[in-house]
């Protein structure tokens, strides 16, 4: 468990944050730029000193202002991947990777050099200098360097923000592999929800220096605080389900008592899959549909209606242990007589639900984390 309660006052800005997140797992700190996410990870790392509060990782106190404890940054064993990679320009990739490895206590060595190099695909870069690497390669080396310092917690401060879309796609699979292959808890800072969607097991929503909500990605995606951050167009329920059947390009996902068909190649039966269905892509029908190209008609009941700031109405449809959001016009609400408790069908095009395989590894009991 990672337990954090921190307070930092500055002239122009103050931060007050408290969260608890299960370990291992990926905690995403999600919020708009300037909401204090980076300040929070800097406080956790120790690069910034809090005015009040504590940081506790799996029972170990890293900082506690009341008890007068503050483990120096260099002894915290917290790996930090910075937005700008911060590779040492005067070392080769190899030298960078070994920098933290050499300084880790021998007893802490659980992550092997060869494994990291293979996991991140950086074997061919070892003799290069940082200035001879692409942005994506630099970020992968930076990840490897942090991992080899044998951290008990990994902080990633918008590691993809400085990369273009193609480079981001190049690095994301490595982050997924890291999450699924190693049991190091991670704190991932981002203002891009698609990254959170693909990586996070726990989401902490931040706004203006404080935490406004937290929970699993699917819980958080239903909250008004989340809608306030991403804006009406990006609102959509996050759904976690298991793959029950695969065709060439379609995977069937068990959700509550229904099945959602999503466009996805190379899915495996039994795999955990996470999808986000944007509310603007969901049609609500009061009768079972016929003669439509739409692949998904999920039967459920309306559990809530909420008028949004931009005059649209957000309909919450309970499909049995899962929830889907739909954006409709007030006219549609009136014409169809939509009200809580009404039986409806949520129509979702398979192509608008893009899935991400999610295989978080649960460590066997007794394994040291």
């Amino acid at each position, binding site marked *: 468990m990672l337990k954090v309660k921190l307070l930092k006052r500055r002239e122009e800005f103050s931060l007050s944050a408290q969260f608890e997140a299960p370990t291992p797992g990926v905690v995403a700190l999600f919020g708009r730029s300037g909401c204090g996410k980076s300040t929070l990870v800097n406080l956790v790392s120790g690069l910034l000193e809090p005015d009040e509060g504590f940081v506790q990782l799996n029972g170990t106190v890293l900082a506690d202002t009341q008890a007068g404890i503050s483990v120096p940054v*260099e002894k915290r064993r917290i790996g930090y991947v910075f937005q700008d990679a911060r590779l*040492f320009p*005067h070392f080769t990739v190899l030298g960078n990777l070994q920098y*933290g490895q050499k300084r880790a206590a021998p007893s802490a060595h659980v992550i092997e050099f060869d494994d990291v190099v293979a996991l991140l695909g950086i074997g061919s870069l070892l003799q290069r200098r940082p*200035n001879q690497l692409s942005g994506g390669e630099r970020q992968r080396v930076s990840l490897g360097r942090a991992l080899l310092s044998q951290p008990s917690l990994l902080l990633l401060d918008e590691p993809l923000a400085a990369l273009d879309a193609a480079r981001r796609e190049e690095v994301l699979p490595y982050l997924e592999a890291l999450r699924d292959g190693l049991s190091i808890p991670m704190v991932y800072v981002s203002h891009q929800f698609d990254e959170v969607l693909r990586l996070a097991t726990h989401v902490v929503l931040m706004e203006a220096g404080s935490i406004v909500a937290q929970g699993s990605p699917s819980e958080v995606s239903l909250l008004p605080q989340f809608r306030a951050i991403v804006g009406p167009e990006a609102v959509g329920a996050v759904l976690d389900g298991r793959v029950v059947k695969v065709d060439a390009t379609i995977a069937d996902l068990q959700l509550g008592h229904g099945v959602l068909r999503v466009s996805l190649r190379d899915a495996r039966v039994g795999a955990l899959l996470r999808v986000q269905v944007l509310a603007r892509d969901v049609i609500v029908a009061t009768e079972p549909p016929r003669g439509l190209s739409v692949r998904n008609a999920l039967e459920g009941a309306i559990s809530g209606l909420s008028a949004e700031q931009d005059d649209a109405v957000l309909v919450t449809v309970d499909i049995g242990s899962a929830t889907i959001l739909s954006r409709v016009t007030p006219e549609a609400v009136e014409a169809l007589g939509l009200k809580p408790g009404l039986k409806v069908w949520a129509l979702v095009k398979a192509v608008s639900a893009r899935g991400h395989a999610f295989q978080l590894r649960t460590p066997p009991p007794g394994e040291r984390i």
Partner: protein
Amino acid sequence: MIGSITPAEMEALRLSLEVAARSVLFSLPLAVLVAWVLTRALFPGRSVLDAFVHLPLVLPPVAVGYVLLILFGAHGPLGGWLRRSFGIELAFSTAGAALATAVMTFPLMVRSIRIALESVDRGLEAAARTLGAGPLDRFFTVTLPLMLPGILAGAVTAFAAGLGEFGAVITFASNIPGVTRTLPLALYTAMQSPTGDLPAARLATISIALGVIGLLLSELLARRVRRLMGR
């Protein structure tokens, strides 16, 4: 012409190189320390130290030599102590010439090193910290290597300036052949002599050649270091 260099000229050339080299070697670690203190340490009186370090730039060199003579002369407070404790005599010696040169070139060196230190990305030091490096470890493995181009530039500048240091050297260490008569002092001596036109011209030529070679070497060095630093 080079083959016909006279023993006296050779002596002056060798002394110039020795004095400049010793002054750089002696003052370089101190200059790094002072630059670090002036850039990173916060303490009252920092501006006083800053002014003190830069004093030789604005004082007449003869005045610097005079102050050194008062302090480090055989009967001066520091000179007397050095002689009694270690048997070191600085006034009127090659070591004294090196000290005078070091004091005169110190501000140049500190200035260059300070600029280098200010341009070191503190984010890299923070990264080293998260990777387990303590303060001294960080300084020697990250900060110092990243400052290296600036340190070398400072050392080269100080060395080049040291080759030609005149006023402070002649005041503090005098003009003794084979001991403190460096190239500029030899040139000055030649100019004082009624038959010194040719020797003066030859010494001036040697000085110019030395300067040109020094500049070329420093450029070459800077280029290599930049490549080594991955820029």
